[in-house]
């Protein structure tokens, strides 16, 4: 009897030794105990696929096309309504231009909600370089990036909204295009917020209501 239990105890010890305990950090691929239908013959987003030469399942959109996810029912054939935005023809909204001149007024209605959205998106996408106050002193400058524009200075105050839009979308100098990361609407929200930020950064004593000027400390 002793030998039976001794044998089992040794087997258990061996299993624990080989398999370890739960939560052990390892770079071994997860063991698939039952893999039935875990991996189905379909292409998942951003996954690899053997069909195309470059090994990717996803395709780059051909030049001059607009993405259509198949969920825009107002664009379906026979739909009684048309989605005017499908082709993104509105140059003012989608490119910040009217003909060859920059749009000077934000095409969106600027209200508190838009400004708050702009503030949030500015914090995510712009502040790492341009800094929370827009002075061009974001965290990245501590790592050696120089020449980040201070976007609240006098020069940028003169820049039309449309040109701001173009720089965000297509980049400028060392700044890479942020069009792929920031949605069109959010870009306009950011521009509206930058205007507000600029005003706050260049405010003088006359911008403070007289009634509370006394509360200010130098």
């Amino acid at each position: 009897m002793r030998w039976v239990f001794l044998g089992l105890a040794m087997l258990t010890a061996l299993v624990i030794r080989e398999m370890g305990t739960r939560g052990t950090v390892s770079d071994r691929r997860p063991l698939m105990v039952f893999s039935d239908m875990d991996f189905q013959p379909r292409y998942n987003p951003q996954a690899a696929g053997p069909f195309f030469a470059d090994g990717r399942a996803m395709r780059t959109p051909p030049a001059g096309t607009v993405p259509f996810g198949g969920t825009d029912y107002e664009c379906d054939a026979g739909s009684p309504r048309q989605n005017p935005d499908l082709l993104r023809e509105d140059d003012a909204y989608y490119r910040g231009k009217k003909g060859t001149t920059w749009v000077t007024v934000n095409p969106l209605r600027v209200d508190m909600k838009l400004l708050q959205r702009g503030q949030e998106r500015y914090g995510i996408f712009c502040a790492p370089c341009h800094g929370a106050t827009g002075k061009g002193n974001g965290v990245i400058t501590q790592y050696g990036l120089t020449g980040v524009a201070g976007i609240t200075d006098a020069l940028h105050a003169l820049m039309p909204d449309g040109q701001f839009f173009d720089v965000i979308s297509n980049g400028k100098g060392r700044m890479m295009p942020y069009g792929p990361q920031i949605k069109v609407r959010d870009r306009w929200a950011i521009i509206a917020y930058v205007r507000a930020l600029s005003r706050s950064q260049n405010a003088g004593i006359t911008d403070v209501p007289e009634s509370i000027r006394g509360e200010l400390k130098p």
Partner: protein
Amino acid sequence: MPLIFTQRADNWLRRGMAGAFVSVVLGITGLYYYAPPEYTRVGYAPKQPVAYSHELHAGRLGLSCLYCHTGVEESSVAKIPPTQTCMNCHQAIKADSPQLEAIRVSWAGGGPVRWERVHQTPDYVYFNHAVHVRRGVGCVSCHGKVNEMPVVVHEKPLSMGWCLECHRHPEEHLRPPDQSTNFEWQPPQGQNQRDYGLTLKDQFGIRAPETCTGCHR
């Protein structure tokens, strides 16, 4: 009546039965311990083609999750960022670092960087990032404190039972939706998570599905 089995055979039978019983118990215990994702997936930390550190980028630099994972608010997938997102900074910062070789090759037209996937649900699970993030389930709830991970580790089991724990009691994990990407978020002073979560659950009308078709189609 004569004995059918000898004393010796009887001893062997007893030993065999005891041994078989203990083996079955050990076997079942072993399966329970080793077969679920709590063992198979938790702790998975694959080596990536680039030793990207979330601890540096999301932690010390304070970049938002959304800077790179731009799809998380409106798509079922969070999105692994394209090489261009890396180059936003790394065309200028540490542009010659040998660690970034794979990024430069990719940027020069060498195809995508082949990141190893850490968190993966089976193909029959239709998990949607957007509905969770926009209803106030934080990144940290499923991915752990990624902002403290130099190498991303699969921290939660992502097993079905684990999903259901939260679907049955979402209040334990809810936060205001605009705090979804905040790793340090705590319920407001003087309120516990449960009560605060229940308020949010009411406010946003959260009814996390507990039926099969909620996640499987």
